[in-house]
């Protein structure tokens, strides 16, 4: 393998080197600095005689005399079932002091697109035990459902609660373990403290054994963050589609990932898109998020819960905006609810699970599920809408009907949403709780619910209370 000492430009995370042989696009590069460190990078552009290299660890320490080696292949992730229980850095090097990883195969981290014809439509309900999700924004296996949060909000607690509690009730009942469950955790630029929060929880609950952790922390090189999620997803695909695992991938924080993309784009002097982010960010994010799913004839599945913090709490910012355009819904963590002490502070109104409709209902969850969710949405929206008016005219000026909706909205937040991070609610309880709340409204108001279900589930006696089961 040829070594070059031909670096002629270093700019931000990029190195330009002259070559006298053809170098492939996306090929992996090793750069050895004079002090003996080996840095890794990837070919971003290859033209006759000159290549642009993006260096994962950053370019500090590289000078014109550093030597450059082209490895003749694109970046690969060594995969094996033994990765379960292991902790790695953001480039996939073990950092847990464990034994060397003996790969079963090495997979290209770019990942080929799943043929849409080969996909299987996701419709298997995952019970997360969180009412705001199970009842109103149901998650299914193979879905990509991000958490839209902002700095200072407890999105990690919510993600952990989901990872801890996620189960598929039917399989449990039948005692049919089917496929095993695995969690892949890809951290990009999060603080050591946040990482500890995850690791401690994984260790406490014993989840680590069935987890693979890739950790690029805040003080790790930024450019490396463009690789971390791809390593995580390549591992996920291997476990899901070769080894039949149901894999839950948590990626946090996608905002840091996008910042790294922007940095590289700026260094290449590309024409920037909105707010300085690269014009191809939609496509780039899609190549990550679309790696969730199910495939016909395979047992396993890849479910993704990416977490992102919205800069300035603004969901029209390109990062949440482009994410929302690709993923199959989103869960909003809300600052107001959080300051009211609601746990988890999920605002269901802008939240959405697009795969919900096919994953719920008779035979899947419960016959009334869809109608109940619809009605609660409409009722909560109506109550929420009236709150502004109350501030102006006071409750007395409102009709009896309006007051009922206001009460509904309040109770919905305190009884239904605010369940705490440690409560694991059965779906049945979530729905019954929903009926309790809806039964505060007159029957005629429940126009989104099939009359038959009203007959069956409406709680006629207003005094009667059904207790939410917490365990």
């Amino acid at each position, binding site marked *: 393998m040829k070594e070059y000492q031909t670096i002629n430009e270093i700019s931000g995370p990029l190195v330009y080197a002259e070559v006298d042989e053809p170098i492939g696009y996306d090929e992996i590069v090793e750069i050895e600095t004079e002090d003996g460190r080996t840095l890794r990078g990837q070919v971003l552009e290859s033209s006759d005689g000159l290549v642009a290299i993006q260096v994962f660890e950053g370019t500090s320490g590289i000078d014109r005399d550093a030597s450059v080696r082209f490895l003749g292949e694109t970046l690969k992730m060594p995969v094996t079932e033994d990765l379960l229980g292991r902790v790695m850095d953001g480039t996939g090097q073990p950092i847990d002091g464990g034994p060397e990883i003996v790969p079963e195969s090495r997979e290209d981290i770019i990942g080929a697109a799943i043929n849409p014809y080969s996909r*299987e439509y*996701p419709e298997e309900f995952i019970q997360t035990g969180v009412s705001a999700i199970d009842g109103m924004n149901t998650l299914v296996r193979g879905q990509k459902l991000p958490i839209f949060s902002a700095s200072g909000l407890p999105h990690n607690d919510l993600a952990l609660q989901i990872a801890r509690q996620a189960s598929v009730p039917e399989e449990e009942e039948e005692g049919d373990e089917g496929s095993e469950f695995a969690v892949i955790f890809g951290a990009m630029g999060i603080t050591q403290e946040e990482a500890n929060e995850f690791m401690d929880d994984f260790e406490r609950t014993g989840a680590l054994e069935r987890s693979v952790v890739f950790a690029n922390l805040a003080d790790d090189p930024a450019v490396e963050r463009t690789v971390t999620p791809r390593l995580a997803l390549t591992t996920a695909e291997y476990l899901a589609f070769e080894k039949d695992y149901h894999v839950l991938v948590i990626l946090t924080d996608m905002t840091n990932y996008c910042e790294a993309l922007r940095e590289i784009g700026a260094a290449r002097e590309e*024409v920037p898109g909105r707010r300085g982010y690269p014009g191809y960010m*939609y496509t780039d994010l899609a190549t990550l998020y679309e790696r969730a799913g199910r495939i016909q004839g395979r047992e396993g599945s890849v479910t993704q819960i990416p977490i992102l913090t919205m800069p300035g709490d603004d969901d029209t910012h390109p990062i949440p905006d482009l994410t929302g355009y690709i993923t199959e819904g989103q869960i909003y963590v809300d600052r107001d609810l959080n300051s009211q002490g609601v746990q988890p502070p999920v605002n269901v109104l802008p939240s959405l699970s697009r795969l919900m409709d096919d994953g719920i209902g008779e035979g899947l969850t419960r016959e009334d599920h869809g109608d109940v969710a619809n009605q609660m949405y409409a009722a909560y929206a109506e109550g929420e*809408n009236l709150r502004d008016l109350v501030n102006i005219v006071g409750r007395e000026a409102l009709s009896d009907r309006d007051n009922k909706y206001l009460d509904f909205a309040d109770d919905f937040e305190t009884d239904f949403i605010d369940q705490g991070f440690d409560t694991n609610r059965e779906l049945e309880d979530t729905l019954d709780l929903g009926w309790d709340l809806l039964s505060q409204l007159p029957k005629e108001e429940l126009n989104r619910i099939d009359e038959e279900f009203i007959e069956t589930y409406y709680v006629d006696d207003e005094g009667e209370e059904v207790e939410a089961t917490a365990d």
Partner: protein
Amino acid sequence: MSQATQQDAETGVIESVSGPVVTARDLDARMNDVVYVGDEGLMGEVIEIEGDITTIQVYEETSGVGPGEPVENTGEPLSVDLGPGMLDAIYDGTQRPLDVLEEKMNSAFLDRGVDAPGIDLEKEWEFQPEVEEGDEVSAGDVVGIVEETVTIDHKVMVPPDSEGGEVVSVESGDYTVEDTVVELDNGEEITMHQEWPVRTPRPAVEKKTPTKPLISGQRVLDGLFPIAKGGTAAIPGPFGSGKTVTQHQLAKWADADIVVYVGCGERGNEMTEVIEDFPELDDPKTGNPLMARTCLIANTSNMPVAARESCIYTGITIAEFFRDMGYDVALMADSTSRWAEAMREISSRLEEMPGEEGYPAYLSARLSQFYERAGFFENTNGTTGSVSVIGAVSPPGGDFSEPVTQNTLRIVKTFWALDADLAERRHFPSINWNESYSLYRDQLDPWFEENVTEDWSEIRQWAIDVLDEESELQEIVQLVGKDALPEDQQLTLEIARYLREAYLQQNAFHPTDTFCPPEKTHLILTTIKTYNDEAFEALDAGVPVEDLVSLDSTPRINRIGVQEDYEEFIEELKEDITEELRGMY
């Protein structure tokens, strides 16, 4: 994708690779020629020629491809294969059948460097001739028929570039698409297979003014903002507002003969949903499985960007081909914004001078060229056919002032504005009735008046007036509360509420409500109008408004949508409302 012949291939050498854009030296090529790039022969298209350097957009991933590798020119422009076998098919953006690719690649993941013709070249179809020896035929004429699916008779036509002539021999029976079925006196052999360059509209005699609606079975569309057969419509909206569901609803229920659904840069699972659902659903027109009239094109967001750019053209060319046969075709493109972004991405790799928000200066031209291919046409063979185009638009941040939305609105005649607020309140379809419009409304009214009911436009106007009044009143209510309004206005608000809940809203996931025939759409309005008229009479007679808005019968208005036997239900309901109100004074 049609497999261009590889003879006369000129070969060049790769000079540089940057994502989907490759430059080559020493390649003798014309603009838009299809080329095979690199050792693996990845398909690409020439998009710029400057001196000795030819720029190519590559329809497959380019990782690992490097300078020095060969580029081969086919000398043919990017074309599609046209012939029987396009219905019930699913293609990628360059018309490679995805089921065939799965088989050839033996993997659920898309590999590269594998090509496949757009239609099965070996399958035999039963050709039934429509001409006899001695007949004169010219370009576009139908020479025979093939039953392509249970629903659609495929018309075998003389290719548009044919000189025409006298038929000297005709076959009848089972043939492949490459066998000659008709021979002309000038020696021209006609097969069931045509190729057509995707960026060139297929010829027609003239474009005419459309006068028939494309019935969608969606109340707010048919009732308030109808699109014509041969018309154009745009559905812009932020993420999660209902673009795809609306497009799917149209693909399912529109009374078109043929549906071409282009998933352009969107989700894989959405295409899978169509593949799984459509075979189970009945075509509302014929009762046959929906797939029998459907052609799917799926170039999802993670598939190559250049093929995303071309998928729109692949779709519209297939649509035009069925139009030539005299069919009414509806094409849905979800989402045209992804197509525009693909143009932007390629353009920026070419280092072209960017226009607004980085989009190339020709964005507006490309959009209008695309929508111009829609229309109600007189075909060269004397039949009439139409292509209706419905494009979803995904504006960044949901802001309609951005270039793709704005340029689209300058062209299309129907605007269905999706609204995040309505979606949040689960008011579906979340089409904003104040912002949306249809410029076809007046020219379609005669059809509705003749085929559905005489007072179609009159009662629609009444509904629009009530909704307008509601918007004005809502502003006051936000300040002082509902009870401060005069009684007649409180009643209007209640009427408007029913218009919103029972008429404008429609649940796409309810087995009955998902499709609402125009007759039912109309009857729902008349029911609400009955309530309106009777209640105002009662108000005049001194009945307090509290009583008028809390009737026992009116909540049933919200149940009409889900009734299958709606006629009886509505009749009874109208009687009950009338009786209840008249009993109050």
